[in-house]
């Protein structure tokens, strides 16, 4: 699999929270290559199923083993939605905007965008030229509700083509930096979608007992709706959430950051089942793969927060890929980290057995 090519393609595919149709088809197509079946649920989550070898080729309903032994499954959850902008109003042909998800207002002035009106319109986020700036203005971040988007058209034409509620995406193709790093938009969380594709491909070449339910969830950036609904519907025995975390970068070397290109982080804390941490670390050791523990004191800010408390509770693990400049159009990731993450997931899944399942209850 050409991991970089897949990430580039997914980064360019639109999928703002609540409007995931295009990214959903792309995910189903890519994951579908390595799955026994794919389907879409009521809220728009995309599901790709790989049957475990214990169940492969059996008619599940008629399977006699099912009466005395539960059908084991692991859910891999990655959100496919991205943060974005929406038209809040059109005034004199200029567009007021509102954010869907945690948009960083600092990156918007001077940013090229595409306004998805009656047809796609090129646009720019307006900025005052420095010639006309007052000294006091230079030291203020322009808040979102004071920014304008300019599609260049005369007022009447703009108002015909653009309506309240139309989506706006950032215009950013993927940039190849040195050392296998890529920069672009929506790597949160298309990096993880790519890593799961790597995992599914790896599983094709090995044997695993449990069913693998790979879910690309909707609306993580706004409400965790996709995680809540899919965890309820699928009722997996365990779940692993794959998302992005903060990479160390210039002027961001806080303890919450992790150096790029040294493998994914394995999260630890109340949101994560301790046995999942143990299992993931053991799998990493078998692969001689570098990983780091990432401590989280509470809410992980991921789908895992919702999945952990679905139904009677689902033992959840979280694996995170470090990216720089999160929630900007130049999120930066190491391609090798996506491959490492995919291999780690596959190795963990390969090792899943009844003994592991029984170990999840701390008797």
């Amino acid at each position: 699999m050409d991991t970089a090519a897949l990430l580039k393609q997914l980064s360019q595919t639109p999928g703002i929270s609540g409007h995931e149709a295009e990214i959903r088809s792309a995910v189903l197509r890519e994951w579908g290559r390595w799955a026994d079946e794919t389907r879409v649920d009521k809220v728009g989550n995309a599901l790709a199923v790989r049957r475990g070898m214990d169940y492969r080729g059996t008619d599940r309903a008629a399977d006699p083993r099912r009466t005395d032994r539960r059908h084991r499954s692991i859910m891999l959850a990655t959100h496919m939605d991205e943060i974005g902008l929406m038209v809040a109003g059109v005034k004199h042909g200029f567009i007021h905007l509102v954010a869907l998800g945690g948009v960083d207002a600092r990156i918007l002035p001077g940013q090229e965008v595409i306004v998805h009106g009656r047809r796609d319109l090129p646009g720019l986020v307006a900025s005052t030229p420095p010639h006309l700036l007052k000294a006091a203005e230079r030291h203020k971040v322009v808040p979102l509700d004071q920014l304008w988007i300019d599609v260049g058209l005369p007022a009447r034409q703009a108002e015909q083509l653009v309506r309240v509620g139309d989506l706006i995406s950032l215009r950013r193709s993927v940039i190849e930096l040195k050392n296998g790093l890529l920069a672009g938009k929506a790597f949160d969380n298309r990096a993880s979608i790519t890593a799961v594709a790597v995992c599914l491909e790896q599983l094709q070449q090995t044997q695993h007992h449990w069913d693998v339910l790979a879910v690309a969830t909707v609306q993580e950036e706004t409400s965790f709706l996709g995680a809540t609904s899919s965890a309820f519907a699928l009722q997996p025995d365990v779940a692993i959430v794959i998302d992005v975390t903060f990479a160390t970068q210039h002027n961001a070397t806080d303890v919450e950051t992790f150096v790029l290109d040294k493998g994914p982080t394995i999260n630890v804390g109340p949101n994560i089942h301790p046995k999942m941490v143990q299992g993931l670390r053991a799998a990493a050791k078998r692969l001689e793969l570098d990983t780091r523990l990432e401590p989280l004191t509470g809410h992980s800010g991921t789908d895992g927060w919702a999945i952990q408390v679905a139904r009677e509770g689902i033992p959840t693990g979280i694996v995170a890929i470090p990216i720089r400049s999160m929630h900007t159009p130049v999120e930066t990731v190491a391609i090798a980290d996506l491959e490492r993450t995919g291999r780690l997931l596959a190795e963990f899944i390969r090792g899943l057995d009844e003994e592991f399942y029984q170990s999840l209850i701390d008797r």
Partner: protein
Amino acid sequence: MSLITNLRNLSNAPGISGDESAVRRMVIDSIKDHVDELRVDTMGNVLAVKHAQGKARLRVMLDAHLDEIGFMIFGANDDGSLKFRAVGGVDDRILPGKAVLVGPDRLPGVIGVKPIHLLKGEMSVMKIEDLAIDIGAANDSEANNLVTIGQTAVFATEFRTWNGIASGKALDDRAGCAVLIEVLRGPRSPVEILAAFTVQEEVGLRGAQVAAHTFDPDAAVAIDATPANDLPPTIDQDVSPNTRLGHGPAIYVMTRHDLSDPHLVQHFMTTGDALKIPYQMRQPGGGGTNAGGIIPARSGVPTISVSVPTRYLHSPASLIYLKDVRTTVKLVRESVARLTPEILHRR
């Protein structure tokens, strides 16, 4: 080559003040078959002469600047990112999250920013001193092998057009360059055209001073891009120097420091009115053009500034109307062709 193709190539080419060679080569290629004399001076100005039709009644300098605002590399951080500073006037607030191209090999880089999730307290403006260009180098020694101190960087913005609108980087003043090229490619004028594609406007009108001395013209026109701050007004907004897109070239009565020659201003207005070429008067104040470098040359040069109204100057992508570029070509060409010694004569 069409006006739009020219504008596209010029906009996409890198040319920070003092490092204009890529743009210079492009300009030379597009005018060399249309001028009678062509040379490059020690500063890097492109100086071209197009003889008059018949005996020249005047020698008129037309100026457009080659250079754009951008960045210079100041060194590498331990983490492999690049320290950089602005060349020319840049608002720090437009920098985060933008893509750039570094050095002669056009190495891709990005201006990253600490994610908002990790910010403590209020969101503040990121100063250029606190930002870095990430080219993916693993450490300072790798970065130093790839990029040399003093190399320049430009925004990695690609020119695009739609509905008669154009956006791209450096339209200040590649729009002016495209206008001047178009004038040179047109028919001979009754006056001799002294075309100066000048360097280093953005760092102090340096190229134009030298070019004006060399040419010693009877009069001059600085062709530039001027701020169009024509967004919907807010309550507390003042009447800043302003033009509007789609209303034709902006004629300067004065900039922040320099007065246009009043006879020239009157002549350009008269020409526009007579030929029904739309034009607008630029409000005085704020910002300047190469007129400031040309006016004091030798014993003084009567000069006017005419500009293409442009939104979002000095940002990664500015925006213009193509019809304003075309009417600027027309107003400059026709006004210059109709210029006589009598018009310039002080009574």
